[in-house]
């Protein structure tokens, strides 16, 4: 058992993947920053000085304190406070957590739906293909935001605000996941169309394997690399979608701020002195999305056979 893991580790270390990662400084830096942010987000309850979701800990008298280093700052609030007196550092840590959860959650849902429908459409072809791809076309003709706004409004009206606050995060994962699955489905379908004409598929058929087994065990592994690339980009997209929805007041409720709703809450103050309420979470959001996109770029280069084999 141990030899197996060692050999797998060795294999990884000898792979082109690891080789190109080691030589790409941008990728290393991006990965380090992302890892740091993910860790900070995961351990937010331990790291954050206060719990921003607990309204009882907020004191209005602490509102709009600037970050440390500026006049009037309080060392208890290193990044300052927002208009209601929440500690910005804690809120950003929790907000990053929400953003990442929604980003990853939505992409897992997208990938599940996209891979399933893409495989079915590509491999079975014919009517199944036509129907699934037309559904995807219809879905793509609505913008994510529009769908999210409508679904969000319906949820809000039917559940009441308090209930909505508790399920908001799952609802956002659901909305963003469902709205964007065609992106992945189309990519998978294209790869499947190319793969299914290859000899190993014919061989599998001759050996008498079932359709399901050929689809999932033989074709799917060969279509994974474009999915990885798309998934990274989609994580960044999902985070941005969530921020946009929260900025419009349709995402996370004010009592559980995500990065987007934090940016919105500071918007009234940006020109009247308290710039940090909007600017700091804004920077965090930009950095988060940027490093994910950079990693996605690098991954695309590595996984594109034409770029390194040709």
């Amino acid at each position: 058992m141990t030899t197996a893991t060692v050999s797998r580790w060795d294999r990884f270390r000898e792979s082109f993947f690891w080789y190109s990662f080691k030589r790409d400084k941008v990728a290393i830096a991006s990965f380090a920053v992302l890892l740091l942010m993910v860790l900070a987000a995961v351990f937010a309850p331990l790291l954050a000085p206060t719990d921003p979701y607990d309204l009882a800990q907020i004191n209005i008298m602490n509102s709009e304190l600037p970050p440390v280093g500026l006049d009037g700052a309080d060392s208890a609030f290193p990044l300052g406070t927002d208009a209601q007196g929440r500690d910005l550092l804690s809120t950003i840590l929790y907000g990053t957590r929400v953003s990442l959860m929604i980003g990853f959650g939505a992409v897992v849902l997208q990938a599940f739906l996209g891979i399933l429908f893409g495989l079915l459409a590509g491999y079975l072809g014919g009517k199944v293909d036509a129907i699934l791809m037309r559904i995807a076309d219809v879905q793509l003709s609505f913008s994510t935001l529009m769908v999210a706004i409508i679904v969000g409004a319906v949820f809000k009206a039917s559940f009441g605000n308090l209930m909505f606050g508790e399920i908001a995060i799952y609802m956002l994962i659901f909305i963003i996941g469902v709205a964007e699955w065609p992106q992945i489905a189309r990519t998978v379908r294209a790869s499947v169309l190319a793969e299914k004409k290859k000899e190993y598929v014919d061989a599998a058929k001759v050996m008498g394997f079932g359709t399901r087994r050929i689809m999932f065990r033989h074709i799917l592994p060969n279509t994974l690399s474009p999915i990885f690339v798309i998934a990274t980009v989609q994580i960044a997209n999902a985070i941005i979608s969530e921020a946009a929805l929260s900025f419009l007041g349709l995402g996370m409720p004010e009592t559980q701020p995500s990065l987007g709703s934090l940016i919105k809450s500071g918007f009234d103050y940006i020109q009247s002195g308290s710039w940090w309420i909007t600017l700091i979470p804004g920077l965090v959001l930009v950095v988060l999305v940027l490093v994910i996109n950079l990693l996605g770029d690098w991954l695309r280069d590595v996984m594109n056979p034409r770029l390194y084999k040709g």
Partner: protein
Amino acid sequence: MKKLIAAFVGSMALAAAPVALSAEATKELKMAYDADPVTLDIHEQLSGGILQLSHMTFDPLLRWTQDLGFEPRLAESWERIDENTMRFKLREGVKFHSGNELTTADVKFTFDRLKESQDFKAIFKPFSGINVIDDYTFELVTSEPYPLLLNTATYIFPLDSEFYSGQTEDGKDKSAILKHGNSFASENLSGTGPYTVAERKQGVRVEFERFDDYWDSESPGNVGKIVLTPIKENATRVSALLSGGVDFIAPVPPNDLERIKRDNSTNLVTMSGTRIILFHMNQERVEAFKNPKVRQAIAYAINQEGIAAKIMKGFATPAAQMSPAGYQGHNESLTPRFDVARAKELMKEAGYEDGFTITMMAPNNRYVNDDKIAQAVAAMLARINIKVDLKTLPKAQYWPEYDNRAADMMMIGWHADTEDSANFYEFLTFCPDADSGAGQYNAGNYCNPEIDALVEKANVETDLDKRAAMLKDVEQRLYDDAAFIPLHWQDLAWAAKQNVKIEPVLNVMNFPYLGDLVVE
């Protein structure tokens, strides 16, 4: 051909001549409020926004001046006949937008309609009737000597009786008052005021045009067209002014006051206000609110000074009662009682140590920073274990919810219509009674007949010292009983371009007399 051209030019010159005479009112004013009027029926809702609309498109019998005196408008003069009767002489030759002429019939029609209006009937309750003497003379009669008769007459904006009578094409009564409904009056308007409504898209823009036959030829106003755009976002509204997109904005958010003061092209006007912002606790929806200890606990949990200092940036006066300083009922001994430890103790005594969950609603474009205040109050209540499900809405949606008493705690701001303490109690703490209109905006369903009786007694008391003592006692009792949660008196701020002379037309009631506005 030449002849033809000459004739054409000549006729144009002739046609242009009368226009040139009345061309004083040629300026255009673009203004941005936080919201636009929710209806055109000035009797549908008693609110600041509707009264502002009334002063633009109608004229009152008389109106307040900046120093809180009276100024004759449609009533030329008035004299007291006996202790219950006041005789008014109406201005002659005043035309409505429809072309009809103003007579006492219109005043009677308006008076009767006010008595019917859900929102206004309580204000006109002391009036027993109206006596029409001739076309231009009438008397207002009260059932008992009423010291605030003239104050109340500032709310009589005569309506065009001919225009509002009869039936619409689909058989509806034109004079009907329908709350949040589509009545004839909510979409059509004919008053005597300086402006007509040329175009209205609810929530998008309202266009006003100067009324050519406006009776007040002495008015210095030279604005021919007003475009009102509602801009809900505070920062956006201020930016619109500073960038030159609009010429006049109200309200100015407290955190942008400095920015506007620094800007040389704009002019800022501020006044300390008399509008109280408060929360009601609905006893019919929440059993716990029936317990005075719970209400007191909430009163102790709220940090009025914190809200005034931090959210309002000092641009408000923390309140512990409804009557602002200077009002007869203002009781100096009442001060904000912020003390979380005491609040927790009271919750424990009441048996609600573990707290409970309530719903809260507040508007987000009606009062200055209303949504932020509501959030802060929700956070303060969390400290005594009351969990708040807060919803903030634009005022067009908020008022229907308010009339349905749709949440356990609801925010309201009140400016005394008569500039007198009693008006606060009549609308906000009287036992709700749909027939008399008492307690029309009492979303707490607080009911204490003893206090109501005391206010009624004060209303007919002509000895001012005795009256003040009674009203002060009322404030004290409401305070002890924690009938509601007062927050602050909101200050007023307007800002305009330097060439828009807003200062002379503004007043503490927040009814800008835009008919008299001069733009240079």
